[in-house]
């Protein structure tokens, strides 16, 4: 088992591994490094503001420092850090051997490293953006932010968002399908619910931000005027797209931490979580409600009172599910016998901090107060209470809690306790004081202030507190490093937890479980203390390694009944290489090397095809022995393989991106000052005929081809129809570009170009997929059993047909009705 699952030896192993232990550890180390960078930037800010009229930094340097502090903490630390922890512990919790798409996880890691490093490198050479972490135009437009600082942000952060979406797909499919036998939805560990909900949020919240970044970058590079009022654009569109992402982002960061608390708190209280079902309800409610709050960041933009009231009401509403979670945790403490060990200390720090942040959040949800406190240090203090108290403290608790699992050692050196008593009080010194500064009128992002404004003592106290807090966090990192490297070895399940990740030997081996466990309850180790030994003795599923490949179990989504045997890929350098070309395609435009970006995009296509071609088989294997007397089909011989589910999730993100594009179009149409344009695009008859025929051909053609493969008939008629359909859609898109030749003239024309671009891009992707499927059929990789790839192409074809029809209808409708 160890031979099959081990990474390659030496340095090469770091580049070719796709095991969740390795990828998660690398992710965690890099995210921590970025946390240190963000922390240093915070100290520079506090050094500058410690005294009035400070000459420590000039305004331009200060702008770059606070922009990068927010950017690094939000994009390079917070999200990757919980993704890292999820990769490390989620397979163990679920009772599976690895994540659903190990290579996708490795790809995600490398894209994150390259994108994040580019952003940091730009800062080090003085090319960082200075427009704040939310980059509002027109300040971030080419006119007011010349140079490449804003481009670094837009392209670098977008590449990191691609990484996050890849991980989101992987986590959703893992939680839904890769679990222990018998682990129904009702028996899932509570953290799995949290991370499932958060991953769906990532898939739905990031696409509007990616669209916004695309629009702003295109405006900066090519002059398409999406945010320029004089040419039909509107800078408020950016604020909508940004906060459609930005507000759920707060919950994307908070909920994994809440999941950790829900996992750790019952163990520390030596009981089980009170109100499991209510907590699941609360997390799902909170996730969806958080998408209805984005305008509360825009209360000061002159929006009508009724709209303000919608979002004010929604903002107050989220306090209810949050309170449900908090009362469930208090109930758990009440029910149990809590022990005040280090993870518990940090959770107590969370309670003391997050509840204050939550209450100031309710204050800010009330419009009249929001107008008074808008863009003051009150908001800065509130968001740090929520993010540090609500995210960082629980994550420190999680690191200490899972330390035995990660490094195989328990804590011996007690630096962590000192770190806690330095960090938490210092935090309150700093940010409690800054609430007051905000109420006294200190605006955020000012680089200096005059003596006599009443803020001098407050800022000095905040700066001293911030430096003590930084020393505290440095001690936390030192504590983790020392105890990971040289502490005493841990025994199995040192905390006496009930979930499956503690059933493995410590540290967790690369294959996780010697056999896939069978569970009958929510806390399997508590109800069956001998389970760990029985798993190790091979009494679960897939104990044999005679097929000499990486295998794990896929279960029914609801019941957890064994359904398939997943065949996972081995070590490969493809994810690393694909990440290199992906990152190059994003970053090359920064130095004007558009040709290199184009070449890299071609490389992305070629490597992705090589990646996919290496999977699958040319012969039917039939059901294989899964152990315990059960035979199951492999994931290569089912109609709904993991790749189909992954595609479904990716298309969910793609669909939201498309929806955000339609929203932007409607927004400009109804609210932008310089509308309507001088003339509308009139489609004629050829374009609509091509579009309708193309969509129909694609939908029918892919179905005919899949049905023919299923019945061992020739699929060529179906393929011909589908290819013709995709090409018709391409032509319909091109017709728009030809009829509206100047996208820089007006935001309307620029939007038409984007709508047509959506159609052309998806038709091209579908053509590439059809070409790949035709080659697979010719090479013998398909059969009635091996139908999965045809169904994936069908799914993409349906999506392309549907969204292309909608995009073209949206482009032509005004001209038709005018």
């Amino acid at each position, binding site marked *: 088992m160890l031979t099959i699952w081990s990474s390659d030896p030496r340095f090469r192993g770091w580049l070719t591994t796709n095991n969740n232990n390795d990828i998660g550890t690398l992710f965690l180390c890099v995210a921590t490094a970025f946390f240190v960078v963000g922390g240093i930037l915070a100290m520079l800010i506090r050094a500058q503001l410690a005294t009035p009229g400070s000459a420590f930094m000039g305004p331009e340097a200060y702008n770059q420092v606070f922009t990068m502090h927010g950017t690094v903490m939000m994009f390079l630390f917070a999200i990757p850090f919980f993704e890292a922890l999820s990769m490390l512990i989620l397979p163990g919790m679920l009772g599976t051997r690895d994540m659903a798409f190990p290579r996708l996880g490795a790809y995600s890691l490398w894209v994150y490293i390259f994108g994040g490093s580019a952003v940091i490198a730009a800062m080090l050479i003085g090319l960082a953006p200075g427009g704040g972490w939310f980059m509002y135009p027109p300040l971030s437009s080419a006119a007011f932010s010349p140079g490449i600082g804003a481009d670094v942000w837009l392209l670098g952060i977008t590449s990191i968002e691609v990484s996050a979406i890849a991980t989101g797909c992987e986590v959703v499919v893992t939680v839904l399908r890769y679990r222990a036998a018998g682990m129904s939805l009702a028996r899932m560990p509570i953290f799995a619910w949290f991370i499932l909900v958060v991953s769906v949020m990532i898939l739905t919240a990031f696409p509007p931000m990616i669209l916004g970044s695309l629009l702003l970058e295109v405006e900066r590079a090519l002059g398409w005027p999406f945010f320029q009022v004089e040419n039909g654009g509107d800078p408020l569109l950016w604020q909508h797209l940004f906060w459609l992402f930005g507000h759920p982002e707060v919950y994307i960061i908070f909920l994994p931490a809440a999941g950790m608390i829900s996992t750790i708190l019952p163990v520390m209280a030596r009981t089980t979580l009170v109100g499991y079902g209510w907590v699941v309800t609360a997390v*799902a409610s909170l996730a969806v409600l958080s998408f209805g709050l984005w*305008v509360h960041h825009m209360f000061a933009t002159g929006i009508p009172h009724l709209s303000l009231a919608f979002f004010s*009401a929604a903002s107050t*509403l989220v306090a209810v599910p949050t309170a449900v979670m908090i009362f469930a945790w208090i109930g758990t403490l009440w029910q149990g016998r809590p022990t005040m060990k280090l993870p518990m200390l940090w959770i107590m720090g969370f309670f003391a901090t997050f509840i204050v942040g939550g209450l100031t959040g309710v204050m800010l949800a009330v419009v009249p107060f929001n107008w008074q406190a808008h863009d003051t240090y009150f908001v800065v203090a509130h968001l740090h209470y929520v993010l540090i108290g609500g995210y960082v403290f629980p994550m420190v608790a999680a690191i200490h809690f899972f330390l035995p699992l990660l490094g195989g050692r328990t804590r011996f050196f007690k630096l962590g306790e000192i770190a806690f008593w330095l960090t938490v009080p210092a935090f309150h010194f700093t940010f409690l004081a800054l609430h007051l500064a905000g109420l006294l009128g200190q605006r955020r992002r000012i680089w200096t202030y005059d003596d006599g404004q009443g803020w001098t003592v407050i800022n000095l106290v905040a700066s001293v507190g911030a430096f003590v807090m930084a020393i505290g966090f440095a001690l936390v990192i030192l504590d983790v490093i020392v105890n990971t490297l040289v502490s005493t070895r841990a025994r199995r399940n040192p905390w006496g937890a009930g979930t499956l990740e503690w059933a493995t030997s410590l540290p967790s081996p690369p294959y996780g479980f010697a056999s896939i466990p069978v569970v009958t309850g929510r806390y399997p180790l508590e109800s069956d203390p001998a389970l760990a030994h029985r798993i190790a003795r091979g009494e679960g599923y897939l104990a044999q390694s005679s097929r000499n490949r990486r295998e794990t179990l896929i279960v029914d989504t609801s019941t957890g009944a064994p359904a398939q045997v997943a065949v996972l890929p081995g070590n490969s350098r493809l994810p690393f290489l694909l990440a290199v070309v992906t990152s190059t395609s994003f970053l090359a435009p920064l130095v004007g090397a558009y040709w290199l970006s184009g070449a890299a995009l071609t490389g992305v296509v070629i490597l992705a095809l090589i990646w996919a071609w290496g999977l699958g088989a040319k012969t039917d294997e039939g059901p294989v022995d899964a152990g315990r007397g059960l035979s199951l089909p492999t994931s290569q011989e089912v109609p709904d393989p993991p790749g189909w589910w992954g595609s479904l999730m990716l298309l969910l993100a793609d669909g939201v991106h498309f929806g955000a594009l339609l929203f932007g179009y409607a927004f400009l149409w109804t609210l932008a000052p310089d509308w309507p344009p001088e003339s509308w695009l009139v489609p004629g008859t050829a374009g609509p005929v091509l579009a309708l025929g193309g969509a129909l051909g694609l939908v029918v053609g892919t179905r005919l081809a899949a049905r023919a493969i299923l019945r061992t008939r020739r699929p060529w008629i179906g393929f011909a129809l589908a290819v013709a359909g995709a090409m018709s859609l391409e032509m319909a898109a091109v017709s728009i570009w030809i009829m509206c030749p100047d996208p820089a003239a007006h935001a309307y024309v620029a939007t038409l170009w984007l709508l047509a671009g959506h159609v052309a891009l998806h038709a091209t992707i579908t053509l590439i997929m059809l070409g790949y499927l035709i080659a697979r059929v010719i090479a013998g990789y398909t059969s009635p059993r091996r139908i999965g790839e045809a169904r994936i192409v069908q799914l993409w074809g349906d999506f392309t047909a549907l969204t292309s029809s909608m995009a073209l209808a949206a482009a032509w409708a005004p001209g038709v009705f005018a």
Partner: protein
Amino acid sequence: MIDILRLSVPITVWLVSFSAVYGLHGIVCAAEWAGRPGIGHLSLGHVLLLAASAMAVLVQAGLMFAIANVRVGGPRGFTRRTSLALAVTALVATVWTLFPVAVLPMCR
């Protein structure tokens, strides 16, 4: 998959209806329907928004009752209970977030 749909549909419908009413409000103000006569002393914009809000509440209530029914909500158990709790949450959220339509001016 059906269980996942039972859990996710009601609260997602809230998001869709909330966004739709917000979008309709944008159109009402942009097209100046707030100043056009509707029914009685209510403007056309106000009537449209009230109708849309009422429809959203009805849809949520319908979903809640459907999930409470065994044929749609599935057998008793965790998924049924949680789906029902989410449907009730979605109904409360709809009423709470859309009630300003009944009491506030349209486009000021």
